[in-house]
């Protein structure tokens, strides 16, 4: 059942992990100017796992770039834990990209250590904590390997370890498992849920796969076709802990899916096919 898009009280907004208002991003200028996304308005309370779904090209990635500070908004504003976003620093944000973002000349361990070193941790302290996380993501024994020597799934685990090792209160994920095969993807989704249960924090998970979103999230934002705006917000009252394969067999899952699919399909239909 949809959530009403009523204005959120300012107290709630101030405490929210993400508070976006009228967020817009355009590219180009003059008559050729293209609005990639927005105006987008939504609030994400701290500690929630929020899925963002929408048709291809609606600007989901651009939205994440705006939230992380990689891009500056053309209009509107966004605040992370009450602080307006101004460039990439000083926010405590983690980002897991769809494509590989591991430094190919560093070993698994060195990659996971990197964010800690950048934050001023000592080398031995960083190594200890990195090793802990390498074990947590199930890569014990391969910490001396280079990314080129790992499978796609293993590289994704390193990416997760790299991001979570410094415990960012907000983690942005841009279709992180899209490039994996179905079995690996299911396994990674379950692992993500258990890691998140352990570390807490807020997660914004962008995906084009509605099933994946429902299986993972507490709440789902459905975006319109490009330029993307918030079309609807659906709470996902499925119990935790979840197993992503098992949860799909439940009646409530299917009901939710049917409701959301109506909304999403209209937007997908409204999107012209890619050339």
């Amino acid at each position, binding site marked *: 059942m949809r959530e009403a898009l009523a204005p959120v009280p300012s107290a709630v907004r101030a405490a929210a992990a993400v508070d976006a208002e009228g967020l817009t991003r355009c590219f180009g200028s003059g008559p050729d100017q293209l609005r990639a996304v927005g105006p987008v308005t939504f609030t994400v309370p701290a500690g929630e796992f929020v899925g963002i779904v929408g048709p291809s090209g609606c600007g989901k990635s651009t939205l994440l770039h705006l939230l992380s500070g990689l891009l500056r908004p053309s209009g509107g504003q966004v605040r992370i834990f009450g602080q307006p976003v101004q460039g990439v620093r000083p926010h405590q944000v983690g*980002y897991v990209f769809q494509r*590989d973002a591991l*430094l190919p*000349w560093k070993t698994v361990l060195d990659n996971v250590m990197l964010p800690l070193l*950048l934050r001023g941790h000592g080398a031995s302290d960083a190594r200890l904590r990195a090793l802990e996380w390498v074990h947590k993501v199930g890569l014990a024994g391969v910490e001396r390997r280079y990314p080129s*020597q*790992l499978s796609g799934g293993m590289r994704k685990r390193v990416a997760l370890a790299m991001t979570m090792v410094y415990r960012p209160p907000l983690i942005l994920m841009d279709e992180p498992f899209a490039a994996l095969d179905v079995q690996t993807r299911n396994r990674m989704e379950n692992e993500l849920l258990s890691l998140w249960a352990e570390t807490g924090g807020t997660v914004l998970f962008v995906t084009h796969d509605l099933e994946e979103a429902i299986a993972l999230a507490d709440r789902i934002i459905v975006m319109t076709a490009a330029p993307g705006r918030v079309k609807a917000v659906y709470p996902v009252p499925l119990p935790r802990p979840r197993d992503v394969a098992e949860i799909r067999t439940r009646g409530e899952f299917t009901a939710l899916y049917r409701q959301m699919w109506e909304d999403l399909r209209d937007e997908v239909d409204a999107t012209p096919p890619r050339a």
Partner: protein
Amino acid sequence: MAGTRETLVVGSLQGALVAGALALWELGARRGWFPQDLVSRPAEVGRVLGQWIISGFLWPHLAATLEATVAGLAVGVVLGVGGGLLAALVPGVGTFLEPLMSTLNATPRVVFYPILALWLGLGIASKVALVVTIVSVLNFFTTVAAVRTVDRTLVAQVLILGASPGAMLRHLYLPATWAWTAASLRTSVGLAFVGAVVGEYMGALRGIGHVIIEAQHLFHPAQVMAGLALTLALAGAIDAGLGRLAGRWLAWQREDLHGA
């Protein structure tokens, strides 16, 4: 099995070809088929080489050439990489540096030797300068290419992890540059060595190139060939050695195994 046998056959045929050519040459020289004072013979070349080594004549000249090569290489790589990093990362610098480097690149640098000799004399400095002009331009362009082809996703990720510009350089751009520099090191070294020798041809007081030119002026074919054989052997050995080293430096590029 068939593969190794084929390699053996081909290899021995090649060996036979080279050995046969040498034998023919020696025979022809002794039989007077061609003038010995112009073409000499393998045995004589070997004798000259042996004499050079035993008498100690060779070492100072070898040292001079290698000195020029190594010094020019070191300075050239530092200037080329440094310039490339500045050009690719600092706005404005590229606009200034790139046209200069492109113009330099379009001209075979050896033709600059006369002006360098005018400025720096016939000592080692002019050779080093020549090698620097060769090596720095090559490394400038490889560095610029290395920085420009760094995956933007990587840059975004490292930024998000909290890297300052210095950290970006240290963890991202320098390692990326090193990959390209190491890969082109073979070329750099080869060009450096040849540059030093040709510079010595064009005016020097020491060095293998100088020895060869002197021998040419004094009409000693055996000495010319001995010098050339030495130079080519050295160039080949350096190239092979570097090939092995590069493989080790760039181990992280190898896709050895894929886990489950």
